[in-house]
């Protein structure tokens, strides 16, 4: 009877201002996404001809190779580490469980700068080699060129594998123990069990992780620009900043959206299958783990250690060393000002995003009509859209609004308003909101889900309106979730590069753009302090995430024998 009572969702409010507000806000947030497609329909034949014969094939090829390469590598690293920490017993397993998440703190472009400094001709590694082998010129030895598509694939994989790791790990932890036991009882070896039972079972989760990592790959601009392997994202920015053609930018953007739609379909398809794979019974039985012997244990430590060292510890060391060497040059009033810029823009965007997400999530709780569900679902597509595409989608409607307002004022009041939104901080903040709303809504909805609907009903019978119920009861009850959402969005805003580059007002710099421009000018030393700041701030939400991972360990393996 309890189950039935929970299924019956009461109507806490009918079609009203909450619903209208949520649908309206959802529409505004969806505007850039719609605009990209609309704009792409307009022809820009001259530039297209030029693009088709010159850089476009390279954009397409690079995007494709990068996607495939990163996808394979994150799958390999993510799945193997997740399997080791959830199914095997070796020294340090519990520490690796959360250490493996740390690379998430690195934006791909920052790790690219760190490794370039470490491995370039004048960097410490090659210098040491030359000193040791008494080489004097680059002609005397071969050293891999990091600034290539291969280098980009490896470095991106080292910071993006945690997406796969996180999802694969939770899939391994929730797999059915009885299936595993049956497989072992039927005489399968542990390897066969892995490939025939565990891996197919976790496949949907792994695919979701790969899709997320791929979306981040498509979004990247800093790395591919620095390594001179232009992808579609780089193409949009080059066409817009270099040739000033929004139409061509938008058309490349739609190509990119095509890739994204493929990824989403891919991901959705595997989520659909998930239902068939996961059995809820015996979920809470402890998993039997494999005890590894000395050599295998050492191998496990190496496999888990390499991503942590390469994806986090080593680049942090490099950046710290550079920051110390160049501290006096880097720590300037200018740096402090742009750090403050980052703080205010990201802070403002994070607050607005969380407020909007709270409004949308709460409206969805009050009313489960189709219109509100569909419109808000559409509004939370932003995360899948690469920042560069989103920026193009924002420029278009904002420019239109600016022109309309200006024309109106000119006509009736003989005033010129100039540009109200485009080229202002407002546009940057709006882009952040559209892009990161998904994360905030996801976090807040899961927190709200933990508050029983009877709490809402109790408050309403005690005389509280829908709004005051939210303020007095829900907000205090989900404050933890709100804070986590705020932190994650804040840090993502700080790291965001492509949309910021396109939309920022002239002369307005954030940590991300500062680091990007210094690095583009081959001044890695001077950019290190900014990079290090971004990474250290980025560690905060990762620590929050670690906390969740450690808490979920109640369900994680305990040794049977």
């Amino acid at each position, binding site marked *: 009877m309890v189950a039935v009572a929970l299924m019956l969702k009461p109507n806490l409010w009918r079609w009203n201002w909450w619903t209208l507000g949520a649908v309206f806000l959802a529409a505004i947030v969806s505007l850039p996404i719609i605009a990209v497609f609309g704009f792409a329909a307009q022809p820009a034949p001259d530039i297209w001809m030029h693009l088709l014969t010159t850089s476009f094939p390279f954009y397409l090829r690079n995007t494709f190779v990068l996607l495939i390469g990163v996808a394979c590598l994150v799958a390999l690293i993510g799945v193997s580490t997740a399997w080791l920490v959830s199914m095997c017993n070796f020294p340090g397993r519990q520490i690796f469980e959360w250490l493996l998440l740390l690379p998430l703190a690195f934006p791909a472009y920052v790790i690219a700068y760190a490794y370039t400094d470490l491995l370039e001709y004048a960097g410490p590694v090659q210098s040491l080699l030359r000193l040791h082998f008494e080489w004097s010129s680059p002609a005397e030895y071969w050293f891999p060129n990091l600034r290539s598509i291969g280098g980009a694939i490896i470095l991106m994989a080292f910071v993006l594998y945690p997406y796969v790791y996180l999802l694969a790990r939770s899939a391994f932890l929730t797999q059915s123990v009885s299936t595993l036991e049956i497989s072992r009882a039927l005489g399968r070896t542990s390897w066969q069990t892995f490939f025939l039972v565990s891996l197919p079972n976790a496949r949907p989760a792994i695919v979701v992780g790969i899709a997320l990592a791929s979306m981040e790959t498509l979004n990247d601009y800093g790395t591919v620009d620095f390594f001179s392997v232009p992808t579609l994202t780089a193409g949009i920015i080059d066409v817009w900043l270099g040739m000033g053609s929004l139409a061509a930018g938008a058309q490349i953007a739609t190509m990119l959206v095509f890739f994204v739609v493929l990824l989403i379909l891919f991901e959705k398809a595997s989520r659909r299958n998930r239902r068939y794979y996961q059995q809820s019974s015996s979920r809470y039985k402890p998993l039997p783990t494999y005890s590894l012997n000395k050599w295998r244990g050492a191998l496990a430590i190496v496999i888990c250690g390499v991503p942590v060292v390469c994806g986090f510890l080593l680049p942090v060391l490099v950046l710290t060393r550079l920051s110390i060497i160049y501290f006096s040059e880097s720590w300037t009033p200018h740096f402090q000002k742009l750090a403050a810029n980052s703080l205010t823009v990201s802070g403002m965007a994070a607050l607005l995003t969380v407020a909007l997400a709270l409004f949308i999530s709460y409206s969805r709780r009050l009313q489960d009509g189709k219109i509100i569900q569909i419109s808000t679902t559409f509004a939370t597509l932003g995360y899948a859209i690469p920042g560069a595409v989103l920026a193009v989608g924002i420029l278009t409607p904002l420019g239109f609004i600016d022109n309309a307002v200006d024309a109106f004022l000119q006509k009736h009041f003989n005033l010129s308003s100039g540009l109200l939104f485009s080229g202002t901080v407002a546009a940057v903040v709006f882009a952040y909101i559209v892009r990161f709303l998904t994360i905030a809504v996801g976090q807040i909805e899961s927190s709200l889900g933990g508050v*029983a609907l009877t709490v809402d009903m109790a408050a309403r*019978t005690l005389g509280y309106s829908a709004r005051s119920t939210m303020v007095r009861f829900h907000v205090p009850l989900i404050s933890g979730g709100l804070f986590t959402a705020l932190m994650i969005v804040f840090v993502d805003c700080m790291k965001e590069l492509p949309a910021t580059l396109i939309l920022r007002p002239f002369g307005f710099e954030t940590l991300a753009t500062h680091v990007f421009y210094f690095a583009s000018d081959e001044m890695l030393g001077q950019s290190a302090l900014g990079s290090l700041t971004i990474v250290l701030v980025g560690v905060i939400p990762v620590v929050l995430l670690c906390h969740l991972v450690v808490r979920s360990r109640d369900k994680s393996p305990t040794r049977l024998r």
Partner: protein
Amino acid sequence: MTNNQESTTTSVDGSLLSLDKISSSYGPRAAIRQVSMEVKEGSQVCLLGPSGSGKTTILRAIAGFQRLSSGTICINGAIVSNPGYELPTEQRRVGMVFQDHALFPHLTIAENVGAGLRKLTRNRRRKQVLELLDQMGLGAYSERHPHELSGGEQQRVALARALAIKPILLLMDEPFSSLDLELRETMTQEISDFLKSNNITCIMVTHDQNDAFAIASEIGVMRDGQIVQWDTPYNLYHQPANRFVADFIGNGVFVEGTVISPGVIHTSFGELQASHPLELASGTAVEVLIRPDDVVPSSDQQILAKVVRLAFKGAEILYTLETELGGVLLGLFPSHTNYSVGQTIGIQLEVDHVVAFRRLSD
């Protein structure tokens, strides 16, 4: 502001709450169909039925959480719900108690109980809350948090919180389901006494007939979104309107019989004389309900029966008896009749309220 009903005059028939043919659905599935009921001021009534019968939906409709597809709900003669209109819950002044108590975990007990008294001054609120907590035996807990209290204490806090706003109507949704059996009995008694002595109008929803009997003076038995019988507990037990109610309320078995004259039914256990004429023509094949308390031990060996199972209930023992004639009966005898399984005993039927339904030909 909480009391802005258009009219506070009592409706013509004197009922505080009236539902007039209300229907409501969840998507395509009808949850309640054409339900009508009246509740008088100061009475305690109950909606009793199996899960999914629509009783909680009625409660939610009264509270304003559920849209109507037809019908009207009036409180004190004023319309609060119809298909085009709902007075917001927060303006209805109904108190509500939930199965999971739904206490606000971040507030103390005093703050929980005072949550509905925002409009009072701090001191007056504090005074009222403490008075109410004392009255409910919770005085010592005012500064604690809900999670520090036992289930029964939490339940009393939930009741105190709902009563603090001096509601026109108190709604209780399975209020005792989360309590263990022993606590449940004392709690139902306690709360029943409290409601009666304070003259609180109350509607309770439950699937447990013992809870219903302990609280309510009138009970509506629900099935498939409709009220199939609205009656006193006594009548529900002794004069169930149909087979469903007879099955759902209390124990008992059905025995085949035939009406031989108005008020007399022939069964294999002899003839049963109804106290009032049955509305069944002579010759009708019927099923007669035999309650465990209709069966009594008898020394004259009128009917012989073998004990096949027994359930000790303290003061009484419920025996499952297989009669010589082949039928199975249930008998509730005082505990000092200490028969054992396999023993053959003499019984007789003393049916004060003959309940018979037309037998479906199958």
